[in-house]
């Protein structure tokens, strides 16, 4: 299905990533954003609030983040596409409800413009330390999709893709951008509506009395109806059967009951190949592969260029989709290369996923950064150089001592003995 021309502000703009994401949401057909504006994501909320009314969409500034995400899920079950916009502290407050969103299979998008540090952190500076939280933040078994854009243009394009994925797989989709990308201004081309592909809501159109809200289609995703249209609906966070009614165990009175949690996990895992999008460059004869995402990818490219000037064969694997994680791809590369180098703006998150998938076949080097800035490309180049020379197999993640770490912490904190 093509986008509605009413929702698409076609043209060439010079705008920041936050603003681009606001435009992207509307172009994707988003009808409602409930949010509690927070630096560095505020511009996205402001933009949507400004452009939404003309297209008949609504922005409501809720009283807090709990209400924001709850309103988004309610709106989603009422039949519209929805999103919420936040940053670290707000994201933490939303965690409980993300599990509910996965459980009631409400399609919605969360834009998280990551800031630096834990808690209030550094509101106006960048970080990439919410990556594991996006996957594991809520309790219980569920899967989500997370995307990591690297430019304002991508924040427009991938906001649309996030909506499409959430409709297709009926799960929370996280856009895990960071302050650097959110506040960076670049040229953004918004194409005409007829060039934008959007995924429509999958509505049930069978007889009313036969509708089962959690009976999956062949791809494990059930069809939806609009709450209030007269269907028998029971939507709960309790583990439920296909009718939506709570169940206590899988064997009751000798009859088999399917827990939905298996399907919540499998609908993403079994479709992972269709969901995952990667950007590969120079992998064929690489000795070292740099695995990066978001703004760290753009910084890493400069490091890669410097390492190549020294004759090192280094390839780049950019995770556009971070969750589900590209297990297969990393495992396949691990059998061919000497090492992975993973620069990220945290003290080690995705690097442990790389280590897990490499199964001890290749060394894994972390280039850390404490946040509120991006890497010095020289550090990445030097880590690559080290990784290609290291002959020993090292059975743990190797932390590269960056200039910043040496300067500020003399390489790391020391325990007083």
């Amino acid at each position, binding site marked *: 299905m093509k986008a509605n021309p009413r929702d698409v502000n076609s043209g060439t703009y010079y705008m920041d990533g936050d603003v681009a994401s606001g435009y992207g949401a509307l172009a994707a057909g988003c009808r409602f954003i409930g949010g509690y504006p927070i630096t560095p994501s505020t511009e996205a909320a402001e933009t949507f609030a400004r452009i939404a009314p003309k297209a008949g969409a609504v922005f409501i500034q809720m009283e807090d983040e709990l209400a924001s995400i709850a309103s988004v899920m309610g709106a989603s079950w009422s039949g519209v596409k929805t999103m919420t916009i936040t940053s670290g502290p707000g994201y933490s407050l939303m965690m409980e409800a993300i599990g509910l969103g996965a459980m009631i299979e409400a399609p919605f998008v969360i834009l998280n413009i990551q800031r630096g540090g834990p808690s209030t952190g550094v509101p*106006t500076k960048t970080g990439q330390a919410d990556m594991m939280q996006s996957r594991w933040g809520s309790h219980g078994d569920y899967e989500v999709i997370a995307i990591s854009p690297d430019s304002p243009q991508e924040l427009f394009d991938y906001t649309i893709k996030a909506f499409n994925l959430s409709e297709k797989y009926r799960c929370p989709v996280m856009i895990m951008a960071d302050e650097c990308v959110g506040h960076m*201004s*670049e040229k953004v081309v918004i194409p005409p509506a007829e060039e934008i592909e959007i995924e429509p809501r999958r509505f049930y159109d069978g007889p009313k009395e036969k509708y089962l809200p959690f009976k999956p289609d062949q791809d494990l995703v059930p069809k939806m109806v609009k709450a209030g249209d007269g269907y028998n609906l029971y939507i709960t966070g309790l583990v439920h059967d296909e009718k939506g009614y709570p169940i206590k165990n899988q064997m009751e009175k000798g009859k088999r009951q399917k827990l939905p949690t298996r399907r919540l996990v499998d609908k993403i895992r079994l479709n992972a190949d269709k969901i995952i999008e990667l950007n590969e460059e120079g992998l064929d004869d690489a000795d070292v592969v740099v695995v990066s995402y978001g703004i760290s990818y753009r910084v890493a490219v400069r490091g890669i260029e410097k390492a190549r000037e020294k004759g090192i064969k280094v390839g780049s694997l950019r995770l556009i989709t971070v969750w589900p994680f590209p297990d297969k791809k990393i495992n396949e590369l691990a059998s061919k290369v000497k090492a992975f180098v993973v620069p990220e703006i945290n003290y080690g998150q995705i690097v442990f996923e790389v280590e897990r998938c490499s199964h001890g076949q290749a060394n894994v080097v972390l280039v850390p950064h404490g946040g509120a800035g991006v890497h010095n490309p020289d550090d990445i180049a030097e880590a690559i150089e080290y990784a290609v020379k290291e002959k020993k197999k090292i059975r743990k993640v190797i932390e590269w001592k960056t200039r910043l770490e040496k300067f500020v912490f003399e390489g790391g904190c020391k325990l007083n003995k």
Partner: protein
Amino acid sequence: MAEIRFAGYGGQGIIRSGIIVGKGASIYDNKFSTMNQAFGPEARGGACSSQVLLSDTKVLYPYVTVSDVLVAMSQEGYDMFEPELSDKGTLLIDEDLVKSKPIRGKIKSFSIPSTRLAEELGNRVFANVVMLGFFTAATKLVSKEGMEKAVADSVPERFIKLNLKAFQKGYDYYKE
């Protein structure tokens, strides 16, 4: 590839200046540009800076490492970012607001009373646009036509004429 830094106080239009240069280069001159901003929690009065990277190819690393041009509209901004300026760089200052140190290396230094000139036009809010005119003439990094279109595109419609006048004033000041 050119790396440009604007520095001053919140409220002087420092970030807007970065946007206008970036827009002029990438939309009207068909180059690539990336603009980044840094500001404190205050809306006005706090130290503030923006950085623009211009290139003929896609900009990857998004921050200034060694600046080719420093535009300083406050003493604090000058003091903070002068060491970052290349030995062969270009320095542009508002001469009433910034006292510069002796010139080092082969730095080309130009000064303009941009805030005073803006006041002559009726309002000091034009100071950054006067400075942009001066910047355009002094550095020639972005075409005059591109910059004028970007200025017109970035201000409320009823102020376009005055802004273009301010731009021209800064541009002509360099020729003098």
